[in-house]
């Protein structure tokens, strides 16, 4: 009865077409050959049991259901993004914690000093053991994502916010990487974590202005100090120059004073020596010379004693 019924369902003219279709499907999807791409490895299962690993190229196999082949991309560096997603590479389109609520929830975490910080990270990994990767964990990507999130929060939670923001970045990346590797080894996932990068680490948006102001304040502090230092650099050389000038002029004065003294003393001694030889003549000569010089310039008024106090003769034009 069954046979008759099925015969009625499939019209005679389509029968061969249907058979050919099924055979073709079988041939290409589960058939006697397969192609491994350069970045892949072929993992061959015979009756569900792992029997061989094959390299890139064209290979024959027993058709399904005898052999099946998995082709994990062992040479491709795969990546997991946390706190942001690359929606398209060209042109680059991202959503990140700055513009997406879900991403913010993923990126926002507590630091060890009970502050909040936003972190976007990338985890890069490669399949190191295709059999472990295929056979030991069911949802590999999801598991790695869970591990990465847990590890990031664990490590960031151990650090102060300033360490995460500035100086500790490298150390923190390494710690996260070690942690992810350790947990995936525990799961025997057969992956090698190549790198963990803190892509974007920022204080949360509501407090970012205050954080930026710290940097500005630091610069301000430096500016105040620089200003004072430039004052110092200007004032001290000026004072030094002034003091050299002051001392030099004193030395000039000193030389002049002493030399003048020596000169005058010499002249005095010379004249005195003359005086000693002939005191009367020299004294009179000096006296008269002086008087002559004096009387030449001085206004002289001669008063006639007999004529009384009111009579006088002005002998020079200059006197009054």
């Amino acid at each position, binding site marked *: 009865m069954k*046979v008759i019924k099925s015969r009625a369902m499939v019209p005679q003219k389509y029968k061969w077409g249907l058979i050919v279709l099924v055979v073709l499907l079988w041939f290409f999807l589960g058939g006697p050959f397969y192609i491994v791409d350069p970045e892949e490895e072929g993992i061959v299962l015979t009756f569900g049991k792992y029997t061989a690993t094959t390299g890139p190229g064209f290979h024959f196999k027993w058709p399904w*259901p005898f052999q099946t082949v998995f082709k994990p991309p062992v040479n491709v560096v795969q990546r997991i993004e946390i706190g942001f997603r690359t929606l398209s590479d060209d042109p680059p389109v991202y959503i990140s914690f700055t513009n997406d609520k879900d991403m913010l929830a993923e990126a926002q975490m507590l630091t060890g000093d009970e502050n*909040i910080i936003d972190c976007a990270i990338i985890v890069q990994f490669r399949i190191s053991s295709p059999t472990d990767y295929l056979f030991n964990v069911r949802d590999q990507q999801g598991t790695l994502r869970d591990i990465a999130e847990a590890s990031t*929060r664990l490590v960031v*939670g151990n650090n102060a916010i300033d360490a995460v923001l500035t100086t500790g970045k490298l150390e923190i990346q390494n710690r996260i990487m070690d942690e992810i590797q350790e947990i995936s080894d525990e799961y025997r996932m057969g992956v090698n974590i190549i790198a963990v990068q803190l892509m974007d680490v920022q204080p949360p948006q509501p407090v970012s202005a205050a954080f930026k102001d710290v940097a500005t304040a630091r610069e301000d502090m430096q500016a105040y100090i620089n200003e004072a230092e430039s004052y*110092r650099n200007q004032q001290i050389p000026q004072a030094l120059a002034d003091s050299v000038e002051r001392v030099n002029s004193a030395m000039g004065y000193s030389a002049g004073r002493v030399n003048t*003294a020596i000169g005058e003393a010499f002249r005095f001694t010379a*004249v005195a020596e003359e*005086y000693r030889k002939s005191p009367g003549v020299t004294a009179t000569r000096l006296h008269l010379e002086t008087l002559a010089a004096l009387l030449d310039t*001085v206004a002289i008024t001669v008063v006639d004693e007999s004529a009384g106090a009111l009579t006088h003769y002005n002998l020079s034009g200059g006197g009054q």
Partner: protein
Amino acid sequence: MKRLKRLFYGTLAFFLLLVVLGAFFTVSETQQAVILQLGNPVRVIVGDRTPEQMADLQAWIDANAPGVKLSQGAGLYFKIPFLQQVEIFDDRILEYDDPPADVVTKDKKHIQVDCYARWRIDNPLLFLRRVRTENGALSRLDDIIYSMIRQELGKSNLIQIVRSTNDPIGLGDYVRLVNNVTYSDTLEDIEIDAEGEIRETIKLVRMIPTQGRIAILDRVTTTCRAMAEDYGIFIVDVRIKRADLPEENQAAVFTRMQAERNRISNRYRAEGRRMSDVIIANTDLQVDSIRANANLTALTITGIADSTAAAIYAEAYNSYPEFYNFTRSLETLENIMGRTSSIVVGTEGIFEYIVSNPGEFL
């Protein structure tokens, strides 16, 4: 008749095919299986196991299901068609993700905790008896993990859930990385030393070693693992994926962070001003002292010059005191009698007087 015969052979061939196909089944590398005969387990096929795990499983079977055959490894297996059925289970590490839950910590803070766990069907026979399916297992895991997490986290302070080491905020490293940061139990401070280097002191929070996220999760994992054993499940680990403050509590943290930063900014600026004042004051002092020193030197030099000159004069004059008196008188006369002076004299005897008393003019 001929048609009936064809139908008979056709049916026979169909059933033979079913029998042959039904006698074989494959267990893949990612699977494990239990063979039931009329509902009773007769054989267990497991995947990747260590010898110790195999021995444990064998011991469990001997105690709880004697007569069940245990074998290991993927491949092609045989069963009696119709009489025996195969239950296939996953042999990989499986995922469990619980929905984020609000937990109140010991210090009465609210925290949004999102956990995940990884588990494996460890004893497929027991698993089949107790929970049958993965969905059944997930709901049991929900019960176990959710309550254990709440219980353990409720016993800890927030900071212990966030942190996992006794390092002062991981400052062991921080100090190493930034060697001018130190930490103290109470203080939090920024100082700028004489060279203008900034030194920060950061408050450290200490924990006793049995606390912290890793310790908490270890305890949760151990307890959950023991409870899940009854379902033939092995819990690989339970981890906190996210433990964040609920939105309504974030505002308070933001306010505190802002105040903290403002304090640091103010401190920087105040320090800058102070440093600048110190430099300016020092400069002024230095300038004054440079000038004073120069003055002292200059005065000393002029003083010495004056005294030297005086000595020279004195020596010369002392040799001829009489002549000195005389010349000095003349000089003085010259000095007082300038161009604008005038002399009033009598008409008699002026020249005689002057000439006759040259030394006594004044």
